[in-house]
C-alpha cells in the first residue's frame, strides 16, 4: 500500500544489531495526519523500526542502518543532516514515562528552552496550553513547581506527551505508550491520540490488537523483522490477506 504524499516513506531499510539482522528490507509509507499502528509479537522489530524514524539508534554505535527514511521527501540518514532538527519534528512517547529530573513546569518548558525560547510569559503560556492539550492542567495547575516524579504514572505519561508537543512536532511516535498504565490512564491516552491526529501524524507501536483497532487508521503487521502486511486497520484485523497475519490476529502466533 502506498500513498501519494506520505509523511514518512521508508525505502529498503535494513538494520543490524552487530550480526543480528533486525530489520529486513522494510518499505512502508506512513500517511499524513493519520494514526498508523505497528503490531506484532515481542522482539519482532516494531520498536526498532519506530526508533529509526528519529535516529535514536545513533547513540548505540553497534547499530548499522542501510536504506532510506524520507521525511517529507528528505532522507534523514543522508550525510550532513541535522539530527536534532529531525528529532524536534517528532515527539516520542516511550513504554514507561520518563519525566526529566525537574519540575512539572520545567519539563514542559524544557523543549522550548533548548530551542532558544527565553521569554518568561511565553513559556508560562506554552506550559498552560500544552498541559491543557493533554487534559492535565486542572490536575497540576497548583503545583507546577513540584517535581514531575511525584505525579502518578498515568499523569507522567500525559506530561511526557505534553512535553513532546511543546517542541511543535509534526509527528508523534508512541512506543507502546500505555503498556505501563492502568485502564483509565490508557483510555485517556487513546482519547488524546484520536484528538491529536487532526494536527499530527501518529505512529503507534502496540501489542494490544484492540488498541490498534480503537485508535489507528492503518495497521502494519511486523514479524521477524519484516512487514508482513500493511492495510487499513479494519481490513488487516478482520480480513487479513496473509496467512501469518491471520494466525497472529487470531492468537495462534506469538
Amino acid at each position: 500500500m502506498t500513498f501519494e504524499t506520505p509523511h514518512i516513506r521508508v525505502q529498503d531499510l535494513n538494520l543490524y544489531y552487530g550480526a543480528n539482522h533486525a530489520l529486513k528490507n522494510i518499505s512502508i509509507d506512513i500517511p499524513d495526519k493519520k494514526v498508523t499502528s505497528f503490531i506484532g509479537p515481542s522482539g519482532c522489530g516494531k520498536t526498532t523500526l519506530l526508533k529509526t524514524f528519529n535516529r535514536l539508534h545513533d547513540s548505540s554505535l553497534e547499530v548499522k542502518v542501510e536504506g532510506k527514511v524520507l521525511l517529507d521527501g528528505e532522507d534523514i540518514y543522508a550525510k550532513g543532516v541535522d539530527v536534532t532538527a529531525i528529532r524536534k519534528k517528532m515527539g516520542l512517547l516511550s513504554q514507561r514515562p520518563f519525566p526529566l529530573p525537574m519540575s512539572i513546569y520545567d519539563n514542559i518548558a524544557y523543549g522550548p528552552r533548548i530551542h532558544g525560547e527565553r521569554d518568561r510569559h511565553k513559556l508560562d503560556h506554552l506550559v498552560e496550553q500544552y498541559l491543557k492539550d493533554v487534559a492535565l492542567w486542572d490536575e497540576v495547575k497548583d503545583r507546577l513547581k513540584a517535581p514531575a516524579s511525584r505525579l502518578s504514572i498515568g499523569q507522567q505519561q500525559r506530561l511526557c506527551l505534553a512535553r513532546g508537543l511543546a517542541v511543535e512536532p509534526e509527528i508523534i511516535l508512541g512506543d507502546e505508550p500505555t503498556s505501563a498504565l492502568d485502564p483509565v490512564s490508557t483510555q485517556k491516552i487513546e482519547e488524546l491520540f484520536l484528538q491529536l491526529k487532526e494536527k499530527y501524524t501518529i505512529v503507534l507501536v502496540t501489542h494490544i490488537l484492540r488498541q490498534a483497532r480503537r485508535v489507528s487508521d492503518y495497521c502494519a503487521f511486523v514479524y521477524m523483522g519484516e512487514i508482513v502486511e500493511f492495510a487499513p486497520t479494519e481490513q488487516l484485523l478482520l480480513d487479513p490477506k496473509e496467512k501469518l497475519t491471520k494466525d497472529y490476529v487470531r492468537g495462534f502466533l506469538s
Partner: protein
Amino acid sequence: MNIRILKDKIAGRTMLVLTLVSILLAVLVAWGLFYRSLPLLENYSLTDLLTSSAWKPEKGEFGFLGFIMGTLWVTAIAIILALPLCLLVSIYLSEYAHPRLRKLIVPVVDLLSGIPPVLFGVWGVLFIIPLIQDHIAPSFVDNSAGYSVLAGGIVLAIMIFPLLITLFLEVFSTVPRDMLNASLSLGATPWQTVKKVLLKKAMPGMIASTVLAISRAFGETIAVLMVCGGNVPGIPHSVFDSGYPLPVLIANNFGETFSVPLYDSALLFAALLLFVIIFIFNAVSRIILARVKRKIE
C-alpha cells in the same frame, strides 16, 4: 520449629552481630585515640592546640594548625585538579566514546587504582618535582625546591583519578537511557542532555563519589610524604611552599621520639584530628546530599 525458618533466624542474628561489631570498631578506634590524647588535652587548651602553628615537642610546644592547613591545602588542590578532569573524562567515556574505546580504557583506569601509592610517590619525585621546580614555580615565585603542597596535590589528584572515574561511570550508568533519549528526542544536543539531564539526575551519586574520593585523599600518606617536603612544620602560604599534612606527621614520627614528654599523646591527637575532620566532612556532605536528593525528586 521448621528447620529453614531456624536457619533464617540464625543467619539474621549472625549478620546483626557482625554489623554491630563493625560499628563498634569505629567507636573503639575513636575512643582509643581520644583516651591516648587525654594527657595532651589535660595540659593544653584545645584552642591553643588548634590555633597555634608552633611545633617544638622538645620544648613542649604543640601547635597543630600547620598540619591541619597542610592537610586541607593538599586535599583541596587534589580535588580542584581531579574533579573537573574526571568529570569530563567520565562524560566522554559514558556518552561520547565508541564502545570499543570504552572497553579499552576502563580496564586501564581500573589498573591505575591498583598501583601502590609508593609508586605514585616515586613518580612524583621523578617527574612532578622537577616540573614544578624548573617550569611552573619560576613564573610565580623566586625560589622553590619543588617539594610543595602543589606537588602533593598533583600526585594525590592522579591517585584519586581512577577512583573518581570508576565511581562517576557507575553513577552515570544508573541514569535510565530512556530518560536521556527523552531529552534527545526533544531535539536537545548530547551536550545539552548531559548538562541538563545526566548531571542533574546523577548529582547525588556524584556528590557521594566525590566525598569518598576526598575522604581517601585526606588519609593518603606515603605518596604525599614523598613529595610534600614536610620536614619543617608550618602553615603553607602558597602552593609552592612545603606542607606537612597530618598523616605525614604521624608516619614520620610515630614510635621514634617517645622519650619526649607528651609526644606520643600529641601524635595520637593528630590521628584523632584526622578522624574528626573526616567524620565532620562526611556528616556535612550527607546533609548536603539529602538536600540535593529532596530537591530533584
